[in-house]
């Protein structure tokens, strides 16, 4: 009797496994974003009754999230099938992810997304992650203040930014002693690598390490612009900017205490939210340039399928669905999450919901990737060496010439790459 019951239970158990396939997606924990992905998962389940899609929220703090993912990979856990990964992770996590090109639909899909991101997500010809939403550094500026002080438009160069910030700051200080010209991210963290690579690239100083594996950071253009950025600290930017992250900059900006800000697109809708001191009084533009053309750091998130997944084909299908045109369109309209599909930047519904998408198309397509794929699996070390060196310059512990020379030695030791001109 017991035996029969047992085998019955076995049959039932096996039967359910065969019938219902479960795919678990590890995604962001963020309020609205989480709602969006839960709704998307529901749409997938409605269309594919045999599949259950679970959404698992993970911490918003990138180090915590990466730490968690690594624990899963170390344990070769099959609990999670689809991972939401940062644009700088595909190279580092390559050995745990499957090549998406082996599943139907991805080869065509890859053509629709921004080539720079697809290239970033491709290691040895394998597509390890499908782009989901993108991010790029932008210059926020106060339209009312520019007008008040007689400037026609946002600054095109860093020198212009300095002049404008200084003029506005001096004028505003008369009534507001806490006013600053320009706020940005100067803390010693990944965000400074983004700000730093924007400065360097916009001054024809290369991208720290070139995509073909040459250490280029120790060059006069890079040194010049980093020294220039250091001169902002305490003049047009608060001394505390060397401890600023994204939110510190936004807090100062959104309370109306800054003329310019470098930040990601997320600050746009928050700046225009109810109660914001700058609502309707600002706009965004490409970041200024030095000797070269403007550069915006590429950010954003991708969807990847775990090698340890029990249903990689279903998982890949879920990822493809989540990153599809229709889904990205919903996310763009409801959450102002920047799509990675080029055609969406011409979609009238999207442009109506987020007008700046259209005018900044070039910024998003031309965004500057960090050298994460070429330096994998050592990108974290490379980035840390870079932002530590830049931070030392910003806080006046070293001049840029010494810092970049030392950085070059560090990068040689970390990567073993040759050095050269950008």
């Amino acid at each position, binding site marked *: 009797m017991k035996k029969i019951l047992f085998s019955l239970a076995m049959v039932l158990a096996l039967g359910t496994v065969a019938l219902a396939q479960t795919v678990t997606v590890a995604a962001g924990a963020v309020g609205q974003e989480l709602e969006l992905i839960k709704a998307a998962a529901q749409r997938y389940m409605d269309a594919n009754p045999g599949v259950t899609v679970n959404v698992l929220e993970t911490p918003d703090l990138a180090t915590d999230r990466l730490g968690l993912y690594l624990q899963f990979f170390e*344990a070769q856990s099959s609990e999670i099938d689809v991972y939401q990964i940062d644009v700088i992770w595909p190279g580092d996590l390559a050995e745990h992810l499957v090549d998406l090109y082996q599943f139907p639909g991805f080869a065509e899909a890859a053509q629709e997304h921004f080539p720079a991101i697809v290239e970033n997500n491709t290691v040895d010809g394998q597509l390890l992650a499908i782009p989901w939403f993108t991010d790029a550094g932008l210059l926020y500026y106060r339209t009312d203040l520019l007008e008040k002080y007689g400037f026609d438009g946002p600054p095109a160069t860093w020198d212009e930014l300095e002049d404008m910030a200084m003029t506005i700051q001096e004028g505003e200080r008369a009534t507001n002693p806490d006013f600053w010209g320009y706020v940005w991210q100067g803390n010693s963290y990944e965000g400074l690598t983004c700000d730093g690579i924007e400065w360097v690239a916009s001054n024809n100083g290369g991208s720290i390490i070139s995509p073909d594996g040459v250490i280029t950071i120790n060059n006069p253009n890079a040194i010049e612009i980093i020294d220039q950025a250091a001169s902002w600290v305490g003049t047009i930017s608060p001394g505390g900017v060397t401890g600023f992250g994204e939110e510190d900059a936004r807090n100062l900006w959104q*309370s109306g205490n800054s003329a310019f800000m470098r930040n990601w697109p997320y600050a746009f809708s928050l700046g225009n939210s109810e109660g914001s001191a700058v609502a309707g009084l600002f706009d965004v533009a490409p970041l200024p340039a030095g000797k070269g053309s403007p550069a915006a750091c590429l950010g954003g998130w991708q969807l990847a399928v775990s090698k340890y997944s029990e249903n990689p084909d279903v998982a890949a299908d879920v990822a493809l669905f989540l990153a599809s045109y229709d889904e990205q369109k919903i996310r763009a309209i409801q959450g102002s999450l920047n799509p990675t599909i080029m055609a969406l930047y011409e979609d009238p519904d999207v442009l109506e919901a987020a007008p700046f998408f259209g005018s900044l198309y070039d910024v998003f397509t031309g965004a500057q990737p960090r050298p994460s794929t070429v330096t994998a699996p050592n990108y974290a070390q490379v980035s840390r060496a870079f932002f530590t060196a830049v931070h030392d310059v910003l806080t006046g512990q070293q001049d840029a010439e010494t810092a970049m020379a030392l950085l070059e030695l560090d990068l040689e030791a970390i990567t073993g790459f040759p050095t050269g001109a950008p």
Partner: protein
Amino acid sequence: MNKKTRLVLGQVFFWLLITLIFIYLMFPFYWATVSALKTEQELIQTPTSYFPKELSLQNFAAVFRNDSFLRGLLNSTIVALSVTVLSLLIGSFAGYALGKMRFRGKSPSMYLILAMTMFPQIAVLAGLYAVIRTLNLPAIPSMILSYMIFTLPFTVWVLTAFFKGLPVSLLQAAQVDGADMMQTFWQILLPLTAPALVTTGLLAFIQAWNEYLFALTFTSIEPTARTVPVAMALFSGEIARQEPVGEIMAAAIVVTIPLVVLVLIFQNRIVDGLTAGAVKG
């Protein structure tokens, strides 16, 4: 006169000291409360305001709307309470042996128990995760078990110190009355050290209550088992990168108040202990 002046000065100094310490300990909590009661706009205003201009309960409302946070409160209570009870029980056994008995290998045992907790948490996490996976335990028992890695050495060492301080005469008297070792333990040792047990338990409870890293990892695939610190880490704004400072502050207050109430409840015990705990030597 001179003596009187000195007495008054001493009194003044005493109260001044208490006031200063009180301010130092309480100020950040005050600031968290003020920040939680401000509107978002006032919160980011420069210069900051010392008192909220208009009171807003929005942040608190958001906290109570958050289901995972409320569930976290329950999970945290279950986990921390179980850890505390187990650690006190096991710890007092060990403390009795280490504090009041004679046997070989006492020092090595003490150090072995202490060694459990001498690595940073991050270092043992991967190994512990492997153990938990091998044991195939659900998240809540996993947390209870793994928190012992830091609460048990603490309870063992503290209770050993307290037990050792008890006068021998008391235990000898019990022995003369014919009580065996375990009866002595239950009937003499534990009641006499009750205030110490309460304090130790309280400190261990809070340690377990505040743990984040293990909880984050063990509950990652079991969201219903998340504890408060994890729920709070997953607290975020409507949009990625946005940090809801006001809500985090509000949540911190909502979490802290039950604990303080708990202390007030246990306080009678501690007060009793203070008066009765003066052991007859």
